[in-house]
């Protein structure tokens, strides 16, 4: 049964150094506030998992919190590269980082297998690519037709963290808009945290609403604006300017470090929601 608590408590109780952590969100509903709290608490040696690592993971990798990144597309959506990730991969700054990469279809199926507590999933994919020999997939034959397909191993993160629009006081969560793989991430993980824009008395059923019952979630924490500069459909808007701003700022190690110190790491100011996190 989900316990409602503060973001700081939730992160402190659920995430340990060295954990594999999936902060999911497919452009929409990215849990920035939770990621920043994780950094403020000094979590390190993390395996970061996400289909589409973007600015949040660029920040986490840039301060050296990650030992490994498991992903399928690491870019600044619609803008370009993740410069901190590139610096880590190309030059080992501030530390080298291990990569495990898949295609989106592979990652999505890995999460789905994880949510089903199955050890693997079967798909048509990776055929003819160099990906197959650089990642953890194995050919598998259909026992009925003999067709050669690909098996991908289930993803079972230690912790999943996602953001949603609302929760009720029982910890039942509702999100709407682009649902991504958030439900799968929560169901696949050993522990889970959902940050929400607001806690309401009662979840009003909505078109496109995806409800995750509180009894499969460990902690729910209120974090208004907690997905900014990403967005929570119907509540906050995507700050496209910040994504463009990040492309410039993040090219320089010193500027990046100073910005993170001032806006994320310093004096415990909640980020993601406040003006601190916006394009100055």
């Amino acid at each position: 049964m989900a316990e409602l608590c503060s973001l700081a408590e939730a992160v402190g109780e659920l995430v340990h150094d060295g954990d594999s952590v999936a902060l999911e969100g497919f452009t929409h509903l990215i849990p920035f506030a939770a990621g920043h709290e994780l950094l403020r608490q000094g979590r390190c040696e993390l395996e970061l998992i996400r289909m589409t690592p973007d600015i949040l993971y660029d920040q986490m990798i840039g301060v050296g919190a990650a030992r490994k990144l498991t992903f399928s597309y690491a870019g600044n959506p619609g803008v370009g590269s993740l410069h901190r990730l590139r610096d880590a991969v190309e030059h080992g700054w501030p530390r080298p980082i291990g990569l495990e990469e898949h295609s989106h279809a592979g990652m999505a199926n890995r999460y789905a297998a994880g949510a089903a507590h199955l050890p693997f999933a079967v798909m048509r994919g990776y055929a003819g690519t160099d990906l197959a020999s650089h990642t953890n997939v194995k050919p598998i034959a259909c026992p009925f037709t003999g067709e050669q397909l690909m098996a991908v191993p289930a993803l079972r993160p230690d912790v999943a963290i996602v953001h949603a629009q609302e929760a009720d006081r029982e910890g039942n969560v509702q999100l709407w808009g682009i649902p991504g793989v958030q439900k799968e991430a929560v169901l696949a993980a050993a522990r889970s945290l959902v940050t929400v824009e607001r806690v309401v008395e009662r979840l009003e059923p909505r078109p496109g609403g995806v409800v995750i019952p509180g009894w499969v979630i460990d902690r729910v924490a209120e974090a208004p604006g907690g997905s900014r500069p990403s967005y929570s459909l119907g509540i906050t808007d995507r700050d496209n300017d910040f994504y463009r701003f990040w492309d410039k700022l993040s090219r320089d190690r010193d500027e990046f470090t100073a910005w993170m110190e001032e806006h994320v790491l310093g004096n415990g100011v909640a980020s993601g929601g406040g003006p601190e996190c916006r394009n100055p």
Partner: protein
Amino acid sequence: MSGSDPTTTGAAAGGAGIPAGTTGTDASPAPASAGELQTIVAARRLREAQSVFIGVGRPSTAALLARIVHNPRLVLVYESGTIGAKPYHVPLSIGDGELAETADAIVSVPEMFNYWIGTGRIQVAFLGAAQIDPHANLNSTVIGDYEHPRTRLPGAGGAPEIATGCREVVVIAPHSVRTFVKRLDFVTTTGDRTTHVITDLGVLEPDPDTRELVITQIHPGVTPEQVQEATGWELKMADELRVTDPPTEAELEALRELVAR
């Protein structure tokens, strides 16, 4: 995002570039840039299409343009799970709120790949890449060695399964020796279903027998020599090299109005 070329995603519709092709009347606006022409040519490929899978950047702009000018019933599908999105603005990301708000249906990412992309339901896919080889294989993973890359690119995204799942693939890429290389540093995506490669200089199509890309069409004002110079291998030319129809006024106006929204 995987469906778009990382090198073009920054510029929504081409922006600056060498002028190429004009509408030829006195009252006409400024001639089309090479980027604009590329977008217009890509949009024309969707005249008859029922559905198109797109990433952001030029592919998205081209698909929106096609809906305005050629094919109002065209179904746009984004890997974020939005099916039948009808955005008014060119989206910056494949997960913009406007896509969700205007979609006929929104599905989870696992469903998108398993039930929709992997099954051949979607007719055309627009893909981009940092490198393309003579058989239209694509690289969006690394430049240089995988373990010690010179440039780490964003990675595969949805491309490998989009390229094998959709019925035909159209690649949209800038024409330069940096992109058109003889040998890829990494094969991210195979070119087996590619029917057209649309560049800012012309259009390439695979030879039906050898599957090697042949330049079949060049944009107005472009010479075959220019194309060869921008290609990192000895490029085969079609026997009858067509010249791209110049943008119509309607196309160019609609494109500029779209980008200005």
